[in-house]
C-alpha cells in the first residue's frame, strides 16, 4: 500500500539514504578525502576564524564546507554524526515508545490500582529534576559503561511518560468500544486485547508522538554530552553541531544549514512515512488517492 503513496515512499527513501550516509560514513568521507577529526585551520579566514570562501567554504575539497574555528570537514561531521544521532535518537525513541505504550495501555485498560501507579510514576518522572539527575549520573556511572547504551536507556526512560499518558487516554475510550467488549466476551485476556484490538487503533497517536520526539531526543543527546553523560567530543553528533552552529547563524549560516537540514530530513522522513503508515493502517483512508 505504501508503494502507492508517493510521499511515504519519499520518506522511506530519505530514511534509507540517511541510513546509508551513516553506515557508509567512512567510505563517503574517504571519497571526499577528509575525516571529521583533523583540524584544517588553513581553510579558515585568518581574520575571524570563520570558514574561508563563500557558503561556509563549500567546495570540491569540502562538500559541506568546514566548521568555524577548527576547519574540520562539515560533511564528515554530518555523515559521522548521523551514526551517533540517528542511532541514539531512534533507539531511545523506540525504547520510550515501547515502555510508554505498554504502560499506558495497561493502565488505561486495566485501570484501578495499576492505573494509579503508572500515572503517579509518570508524574514523578515528569516532575523529576532530570538535569540534576543526569549530572549525578554522569559522575556515578563508571566510564566502562558504553555511552551509547547509557544514553539510549536514559533518554528512552525519561521519554515514556508523555507517550504513556496519551496512550492511556486513548485506551480509556477504546476499552468501552464494542469490539473490545466483543473480544473480552470471547475470553480475550489483556495481552490479546492489547495486541489485536487496542494497538491497531492506537497507531495514529503513537506514530505522531514518537516521530515528533526524535529531534528532541537528538537534542537531548547533545545536551547530555555537555554534562559528561553523552558521547564525548570530538565524536561528531548532529545535536552538538547544531548547538554550536546557532552562535554562527549570522556569520556562517551554512554551518547550521547542513546538520540542521539533516535533522530536519530525518524527522520529516519519519513523519511522512508515519503518515503513510497511518493511512495504510486505517482502512477508511487507505483506498484514497
Amino acid at each position: 500500500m505504501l508503494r502507492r503513496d508517493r510521499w511515504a515512499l519519499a520518506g522511506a527513501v530519505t530514511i534509507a539514504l540517511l541510513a546509508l550516509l551513516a553506515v557508509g560514513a567512512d567510505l563517503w568521507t574517504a571519497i571526499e578525502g577528509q575525516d571529521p577529526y583533523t583540524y584544517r585551520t588553513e581553510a579558515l579566514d585568518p581574520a575571524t576564524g570563520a570558514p574561508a570562501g563563500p557558503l561556509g567554504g563549500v567546495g570540491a575539497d569540502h562538500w559541506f564546507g568546514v566548521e568555524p574555528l577548527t576547519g574540520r570537514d562539515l560533511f564528515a561531521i554530518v555523515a559521522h554524526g548521523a551514526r551517533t544521532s540517528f542511532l541514539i535518537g531512534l533507539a531511545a525513541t523506540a525504547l520510550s515508545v515501547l515502555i510508554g505504550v505498554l504502560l499506558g495501555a495497561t493502565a488505561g485498560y486495566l485501570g484501578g490500582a495499576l492505573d494509579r501507579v503508572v500515572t503517579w510514576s509518570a508524574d514523578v518522572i515528569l516532575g523529576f529534576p532530570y538535569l540534576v539527575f543526569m549530572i549525578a549520573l554522569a559522575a556515578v556511572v563508571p566510564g566502562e559503561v558504553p555511552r551509547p547504551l547509557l544514553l539510549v536507556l536514559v533518554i528512552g526512560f525519561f521519554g515514556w511518560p508523555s507517550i504513556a499518558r496519551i496512550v492511556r487516554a486513548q485506551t480509556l475510550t477504546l476499552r468501552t468500544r464494542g469490539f473490545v467488549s466483543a473480544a473480552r466476551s470471547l475470553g480475550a485476556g489483556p495481552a490479546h486485547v492489547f495486541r489485536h484490538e487496542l494497538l491497531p487503533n492506537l497507531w495514529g497517536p503513537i506514530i505522531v508522538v514518537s516521530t515528533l520526539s526524535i529531534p528532541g531526543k537528538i537534542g537531548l543527546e547533545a545536551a547530555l554530552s555537555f554534562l559528561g553523560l553523552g558521547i564525548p567530543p570530538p565524536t561528531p553528533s548532529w545535536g552538538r553541531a547544531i548547538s554550536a552552529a546557532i552562535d554562527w547563524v549570522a556569520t556562517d549560516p551554512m554551518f547550521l544549514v547542513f546538520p540542521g537540514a539533516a535533522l530536519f530530513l530525518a524527522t520529516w522522513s519519519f513523519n511522512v512515512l508515519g503518515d503513510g503508515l497511518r493511512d495504510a493502517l486505517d482502512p477508511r483512508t487507505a483506498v484514497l488517492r
Partner: protein
Amino acid sequence: MGTAKFVGSRLAGAVLVLFLVALSTYAVFYLVPADPALQACGRPCTDQNLALAREFMGYGDPWWRQFLDFAGGLFTGRTFGSGPTAIRCDAPCFGYSFAQNTEVLTLIGERLPVTVSLAVGAALLWLVTGVGAGVVAALRRGTAWDRIALASSVAGVSAPVYLVGLLGILLFGFTLDVVPVGGYVPFTTSPVDWAWRLALPWAVLAFSHAAVYTRLTRAQMLDTLGEDYIRTARAKGLTETKVVGKHALRNVLLPIVTVFGVDLGTLLGGAVITERVFGLPGLGGLLIDAVGQRDLPVLLGCTLFAAFLIVAANVVVDLCYGALDPRARLT
C-alpha cells in the same frame, strides 16, 4: 465513584507524588559530586570555613535527616543558625536560599507571574494554531496545505528553541523593528505592554510546541471523520464548520488535552531557554541557576512546584476526560 471521591483520591496521589519527587530530588542531589557549601566558602576556601558553611546551611547531616528537616519545615517552619544571625523561615517553609538570601517561596512567588504569563499565553496560541492547522491538514489531506503543515511542524520541533528565539529577535526585533525585544512588564502595569512584549516569546514557544498538536489533531481527525455519527451530523444539515469543529473535534480532544496537560504543566515549571533569550525573569532561570549553583533549597522548591503543577494539570486533565468523553469516565 463520585467526583468528590475521585478528586480526593487524586489529591492523595498528588501528595504521594510530591513526596516522591522531593525524596528523589534529595537523594539525587546527594549523588551529585559537589558540595553545596563550597559556594558559601569563598576563595580561598579552607577546610575549616567549608565545614562552618556546611553546618550553618544545614548540610552537615545525612541526606535523609535533611529531608526530614525539610519536610518538618513545611509544617512548622525552620530556623537556620542561631543567635542574632539566625534566619527564620515560617511555615510552610520550602527552604531558604543562602545564595539568594531569600525564602524559596518568596523567590518562586516573585517569578511566578512571568512564567504564568509566558506559559499560558504561549499555550493558548499553540493550542489554537496547532489544532487549527491539524484540522486543515486533515480536511485537505494530501494537498499542499497538508504538506505545508507537516513541514512547518517538523521545522518547529527540529529547530532548537534558542535558535528560533534568536532569529525571531533578529528579524522582528531588529530588522523589522515591530516588537520590543525582551523585558517583562507586569499585566497590572500595562496589559498592552505586557502582551506586546510577550508576543514574540509566545510565538517562539508556540512554534516549537504546536507540532505535536497539529499532527495529533490530523491523525485523530482522520480517524474520526469516518465515524457514523459524523454522517449523522452532516445529515442534520449542520455546517461543515460545526461538523468538523464540534462533532469531530470533540472526539479528537482526548489525546490533545492529555498532551496539553503535560506540556502546560512542564512549561509552568519554567521555559528555561525562552526566558533566557528574552530576558524574562521566570522560574526557568531560577531553576537553572539553582542547578548551576547547587542551591538545593531553590532547586527543591522549583522542582516541587513544577511537579505540583504537573500533577495538578494531570488531575484536571483526568477530570476533563469524563467531560470530554462520557464513556472514558474514570472510576
